């Protein structure tokens, strides 16, 4: 019975969910993605102590995305956007350094980008219990000749703090 009621609450939640800060009309899951969150799905951490959660991402072959600090102001940086669940404090988020990349038509102009797989390290402190870290990685991808609008790849990690 409880399971059924929980299902109903979940279903009604789908229909009337409140918009979170990063949400648009098109949910991240509905957008065609150039970047995928790989893992972890679940992490175990020590309760009440700062821990580092390594979030692994993969960029589709042939594409690159701006690093978290693009060299030009108008370029869109890669950002991790998460809502702090109750009982979890998110501290510093460390992004890897970008690699130099030049377009064939402008070999002297260096862009700071990520390609392939990369890891974002989030420093978190969780109270004892199970928490869902839910958010998105905002990025803007390009290939050698074209760029695609900024997108948000969903990120979800189950945090078990003991």
């Amino acid at each position, binding site marked *: 019975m409880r399971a059924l009621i929980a299902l*109903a609450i979940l*279903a*009604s939640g789908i229909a009337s969910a409140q918009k979170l800060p990063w949400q648009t009309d098109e949910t991240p899951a509905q957008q065609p993605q150039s970047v995928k969150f790989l893992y972890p799905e679940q992490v175990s951490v020590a309760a009440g102590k700062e821990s580092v959660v390594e979030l692994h991402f993969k960029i589709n072959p042939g594409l690159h995305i701006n690093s978290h600090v693009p060299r030009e102001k108008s370029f869109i940086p890669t950002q991790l956007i998460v809502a702090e669940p109750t009982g979890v404090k998110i501290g510093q988020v460390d992004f890897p350094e970008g690699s130099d990349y030049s377009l064939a*038509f402008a070999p002297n102009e260096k862009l700071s980008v990520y390609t392939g797989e990369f890891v974002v390290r989030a420093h978190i402190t969780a109270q004892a219990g199970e928490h869902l870290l839910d958010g998105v990685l905002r990025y803007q991808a*390009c290939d*050698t000749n*074209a*760029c695609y609008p900024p997108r948000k790849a969903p990120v979800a990690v189950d945090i078990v703090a003991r």
Partner: protein
Amino acid sequence: MKRNYLVIVVVVVAVVLMAWAGVANYRKRKEEQDRLKQMQAMMMTATPPPSAAGANSGSEPEMMTNPLAGKVAPDFTLKDTTGRKVSLSSYKGKAVVLDFWATWCAPCKIEIPWLEKLRDQYASQGLEVLGVSEDDLDLDDKAKLAKEKQDIADSATKLHINYPVLIDDNETSKPYGGIDALPTTFYIDRNGKVVAATIGLADRDEIEANIQKSLGGQKTVGSETQAQKGQP
């Protein structure tokens, strides 16, 4: 008994809502796939490379896969960065390069200086270039919107753009295939018809050949397009 009815109603509602969410999600994905297919279909069939252009002089370029090929370019009225209204239809009689770009698009910033020079070169023959910014705008926040528009204007100034830069209203790009890859450029002849289109950064010679085509010249160069590599 009454409680059992309530539970049944709740379960039925839950199932209906879940089914509805699934169908809505499927439709959205299907629409997105169709849109991408349409964009890919807009890639032109390659015409002979420059070395073979002479042999083909005078022939019509192959562009049957472009859904807008030979059709009148969808009209629009947009405001430029100074707030002036600009309509595509007001350029009838001129050849128009319609370039969709964004401030965050690095390949666009390579193409734009070429367009500036080509506009100067061919303006006396009746060429105009219109840039349409595809930057995201926050329409609900006036202060933010004003800043975003100013950022577009600042980028245009920094790039020394010498042609009108229009700000998309999120609707204009739809009849052009729902622009997803930038730059995307349409070449429109004096009668308002689309004679060529490219997705992604094209070669400068190809851009010039397409401009000549839109002006009524006979030179044809490969109209191959790029992009969509790896994009789902």
